[in-house]
């Protein structure tokens, strides 16, 4: 991958209202600064909607349209088409959504935008639940995690959004982490350069929602990557898989033990999660191998 070094250029202001230590604000800063001034953002209800600021303030310099929870990708499509009708084809239209607005209620609109290959850059800040409403489960919440609506732990797996999007054969899907800002900036830069629907899913350890210490969000995000729980990779045209981190070198236990949502797990539960992660990692490696030239 063409690596760039991330640089600030003040598209995102201090004084925003993210929780202290929140890495979603960090990721937002990287994205906005990488995309630059010629952009419009569409934001469904989410932590990002709050971070962008309540009227009459705005923490971001580009125009923001706050839309409804189901409508992120559809609203972004409308903005883009209007800009195209005005000859402003090069303006980047961002959709900045949470996992509820992506994996759950917004999936229908996102699938349709992807099928139409609308020229939008869709960012999912994936904090694995409805954290802005106090922490309830979404279909992105992982197995066993305790949330406000799964007090005994979630009994089903996290939905594989990358695979769903890959089936749409859009130009680019990537995962990114606040623990590797250069990688994140490089992926945003690449996505911005492509026409069509691009989706970047960023894992956002949520301090109150996951029960992570105020200074541990970046560390948690890094362990998610290093343990293979959240591998960093990219899928082009739905078929070409490229890893951004080639190996995993931490046990899942190191990742899980930083989070109160997993503190009820038995050693057997953790073993099972490790086995699942290993299996998924292997599956992902096979996809990478399949796409390498013979």
């Amino acid at each position, binding site marked *: 991958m063409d690596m760039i070094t991330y640089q600030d250029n003040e598209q995102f202001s201090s004084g925003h209202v993210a929780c202290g230590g929140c890495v979603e604000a960090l990721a937002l800063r990287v994205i906005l600064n990488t995309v630059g001034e010629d952009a419009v953002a569409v934001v469904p209800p989410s932590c990002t909607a709050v971070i962008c600021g309540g009227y009459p303030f705005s923490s971001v310099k580009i125009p923001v349209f706050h839309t409804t929870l189901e409508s992120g990708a559809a609203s972004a499509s*409308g903005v883009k088409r209007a800009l195209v009708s005005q000859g402003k084809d090069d*303006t980047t239209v961002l959709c900045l959504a949470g996992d509820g607005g992506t994996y759950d209620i917004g999936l229908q609109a996102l699938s349709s935008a992807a099928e139409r290959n609308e020229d939008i850059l869709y960012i999912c800040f994936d904090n694995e639940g409805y954290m802005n409403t106090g922490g309830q489960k979404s279909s992105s919440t992982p197995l066993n995690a305790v949330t406000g609506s799964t007090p005994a732990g979630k009994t089903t797996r996290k939905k594989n959004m990358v695979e769903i999007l890959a089936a749409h054969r859009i130009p680019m899907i990537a995962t990114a982490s606040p623990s590797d800002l250069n990688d994140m900036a490089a992926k945003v830069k690449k996505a911005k350069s492509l026409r069509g629907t691009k989706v970047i899913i960023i894992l956002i350890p949520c301090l109150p929602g996951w029960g992570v210490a105020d200074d541990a969000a970046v560390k948690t995000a890094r362990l998610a990557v290093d343990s293979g729980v959240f591998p960093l990779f990219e899928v082009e045209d739905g078929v070409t898989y490229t890893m951004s981190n080639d190996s995993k070198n931490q046990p899942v236990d190191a990742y899980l033990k930083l989070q109160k949502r997993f503190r009820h797990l038995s050693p057997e539960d953790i073993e099972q999660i490790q086995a699942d992660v290993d299996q998924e990692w292997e599956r992902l490696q096979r996809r990478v191998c399949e796409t390498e030239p013979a």
Partner: protein
Amino acid sequence: MTVIDNRQLLSGNHAVAWGVKLAHPDVAPVYPITPQTPILEKITEFHAKGEMTTELLTPESEHSAMAACISASLTGARVFTATSSQGLLLMHELLHYASGARSSIVMFNVNRTPASPWGFWPDQLDSLSQRDTGWIQLYSESPQESLDTVIQAFVIAESLQIPTMICHDAFYVSHSVEAVDIPPQSLVSDFLPAFKPEHRLDTSLGQSFGAPIDQLTWNRSRQEMAQTMAQVGDAVTTTGEDWGTLTGRSYGPLEHYRMEAAEVVIVTMGSMCGTVRDAVDAMRAQGQAVGLLKVRLFRPLPVEALRAALEGVPCAIVLDRNYSPGMGGILHQELKSALFGMNNPARVHGLLAGVGGVNVPPTKIQQLVADFKEAEPAVQSVWVE
């Protein structure tokens, strides 16, 4: 001046599509639903032939279609969509959003029974139950009126920044064919100014829309909508008169048909008006003083104009092709509310006629007048089928 250089046999829905073609929206997100689909298909046909350069979107639902309409409108694009029944109801959340955001969308709704049970029949409950969403609502009686009203609606919606919905009845208008005068493009282009909203999503302006606000600001946003809603009646009158100057076909919020010295006035909307005209003509021929008051603008309700129209009229009979369970006919409720407090108000009968698309022929209307004109009105609407 009357311009007739292109008269074609058109269904109501194709007349709408011609109106849209002439207004030339920048963006049109569309989703199919019976009996609206011929509007969509005619527009996509115009587009495929290169006669329209509109950005067409075909999203997966009416919800997403309306979402795209709102954001495109706020980006400064002229926007059109069309729907019916379930589709309109699926949009409900976004109808509130569209008006609150002061978007200038024009939408055509083909009035059709909402499920359950499934039906595809003319009934105005779908749009009437959206009366509190902040949209202007205009009801059309014929293909010609639908074409003319689409063009006028863009003027109204874009000048006042209130989204505007035009409705005509399923099949009775949507699929009925009549000779329609299609105005020349130059006439429409002169009549309909370019849409250039001062506030829009534009990187050179940096303005944002829809951010969370405090209680007082929300309250004030509704007071601002109220101020604009108060201007709609005049805008509908002026726009309809200006259109009349150009085409010979004038329109207003209400239409008075043979109301001179009327002792009974039938008040209704949509295709029922055409049937009532025939019934009124027959009764007038028999010497009965009966007229029609057609409600074209339902939201905002032209309260003052309704009061003036029915001043001194002894009896009004409302024909509602809709039913609000637990309260009755919606136009009946609205008219009683509008007339409340008048000196010697008309006796108002509310008749549930044609609910579910049941046919109401002119002879039936004559019978209803005979049955109800001397009767003491019931408080509630009365089923007459």
